[in-house]
């Protein structure tokens, strides 16, 4: 089952969203690390896990740029712990006040998680707050807001509303069994991104995320070639298929000059009502099925008619 990540604010940035089957916090942390490596300050408003658990796994050059706002220890003010970030402080001014305590300059705001807030505050208020944060934080520049969303905790309508507001949505899900090896098993992620020009990009990929990049290239380090070079692609695009219709309207057979025993023998089509699409495909040999063999001499192949404009694939 797919979870979806939602970016809520005008600031761009993909955000992981997950379900109980596949956690998305590790992907969120890779985005945090990427922001830190870009030289940005990262303000994390954490509500679901303690600070030491969130910081676990980060390099020292990332943790030095991380400013953690503790919304985990006493978010509802039951114990009176000082210094924490309460749920009632999640307003544009409240968040901006916390951001102002950090260094000026480009800043990434992280919400772990948006689901925790949406369960305790109405959706319009949360969305308004997220939209006003960049304007309220006047002392610094909010470049992006990352938010983790647990899709299976919310009704589908709410999730769709957040999708429509977000600049980028990244959904994570468990990879099928058999994909990956050992404990470093990949996840599957789908990303939907709306660019400023109005273009919408959709991408689905397998990822073993340890960095902000999009995971492992499955075609790398193979003993065979899965891709075509430019020359090979041009040759394939320029090749005519044996079943392309001619001006006469018939579908002539191709006349291979040589065929191997491994080539399958296929019967000729009676009629082709429509011409084959002109998309490139690997060449294949098409031979008439012999109805009887009276001697050891094989039946000769009928040559194409003179009106045929089909070239043999071997003539290339």
């Amino acid at each position: 089952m797919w979870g979806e990540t939602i970016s809520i604010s005008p600031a761009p940035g993909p955000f992981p969203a997950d379900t109980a089957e596949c956690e998305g916090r590790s992907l969120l942390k890779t985005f945090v690390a990427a922001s830190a490596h870009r030289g940005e300050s990262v303000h994390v408003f954490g509500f679901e896990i303690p600070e030491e658990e969130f910081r676990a796994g980060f390099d020292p050059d990332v943790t030095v740029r991380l400013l953690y706002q503790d919304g985990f220890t006493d978010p509802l003010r039951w114990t009176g712990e000082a210094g924490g970030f309460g749920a009632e402080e999640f307003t544009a001014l409240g968040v901006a006040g916390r951001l102002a305590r950090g260094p000026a300059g480009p800043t990434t705001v992280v919400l772990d998680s948006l689901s925790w807030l949406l369960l305790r505050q109405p959706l319009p208020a949360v969305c308004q707050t997220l939209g006003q944060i960049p304007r309220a934080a006047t002392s610094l520049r909010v470049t992006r807001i990352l938010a983790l969303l647990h899709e299976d905790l919310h009704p589908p309508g709410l999730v769709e509303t957040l999708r429509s507001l977000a600049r980028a949505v990244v959904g994570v899900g468990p990879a099928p069994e058999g994909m990956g090896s050992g404990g470093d098993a990949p996840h599957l992620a789908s990303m939907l991104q709306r660019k400023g020009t109005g273009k919408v990009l959709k991408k689905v990929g397998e990822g073993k995320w340890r960095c902000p990049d999009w995971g492992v290239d499955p075609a790398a380090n193979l003993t065979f070639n899965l891709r075509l070079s430019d020359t090979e692609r041009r040759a394939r695009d320029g090749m005519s298929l044996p079943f392309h219709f001619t001006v006469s309207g018939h579908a002539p057979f191709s006349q291979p000059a040589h065929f191997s025993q491994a080539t399958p023998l296929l019967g000729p089509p009676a009629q082709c009502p429509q011409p084959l699409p002109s998309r490139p495909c690997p060449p294949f040999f098409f031979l008439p099925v012999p109805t009887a063999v009276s001697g050891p001499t094989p039946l000769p192949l009928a040559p194409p008619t003179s009106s045929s404009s089909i070239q043999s694939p071997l003539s290339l």
Partner: protein
Amino acid sequence: MRLYQNSLTAAKERGQLVFLEGLKSCFDVLFGEEQHVGQTNPLQFVSENGSNLKTMYEFVRTSLIASGSDSWKCPVLLVDDLSILLSLGVRPVDVLDFIHYCRVAVCSQLKGNIVVLVHSSDDSEDEENELVVNSLCHQSNLILWAEGLATGFCKDVHGQLKIIQKGSSELKAERNLLQIYQYKIQDKNVTFFARGMSAAVL
């Protein structure tokens, strides 16, 4: 309590076990005498038609602090079961708030563990219960999913247990570890074995 009565009674007497009888406390709240000043019943919310479980959390915290002065190791909070709180009219978010603060006190501060029992099913239409269950699945490191056999009743195999160990949420994404066992409940014991390896068929 009846199944392991002797050992749990002894633990209660030496202060190792603090047992809150929810049924008895509910009765005391609704039909009992006036509460003394300074004493608050952990289930006070039942009479107040409210949903705030802050008093129950304070009871948990007080009990843990009192036992923390002894030489016991990491505390364990057992909750049996959360679905009943929903039946008493507690809102799902208030149940999650209670568990949240218990995690802060028991897991984060006292380095203990919490074991929570909830009821669910694949075709459940109880949205509030499913919200609590899914939220607990997100927060848990280990999920024990007990269910009956898909093939129906069996005298020698009483059910199946799925053990889902969540991967760590550090930078490296890890797949959840899944183990499946079948079990048979005996008089004072439970026997676990691999699927199809019941003693009755071997």
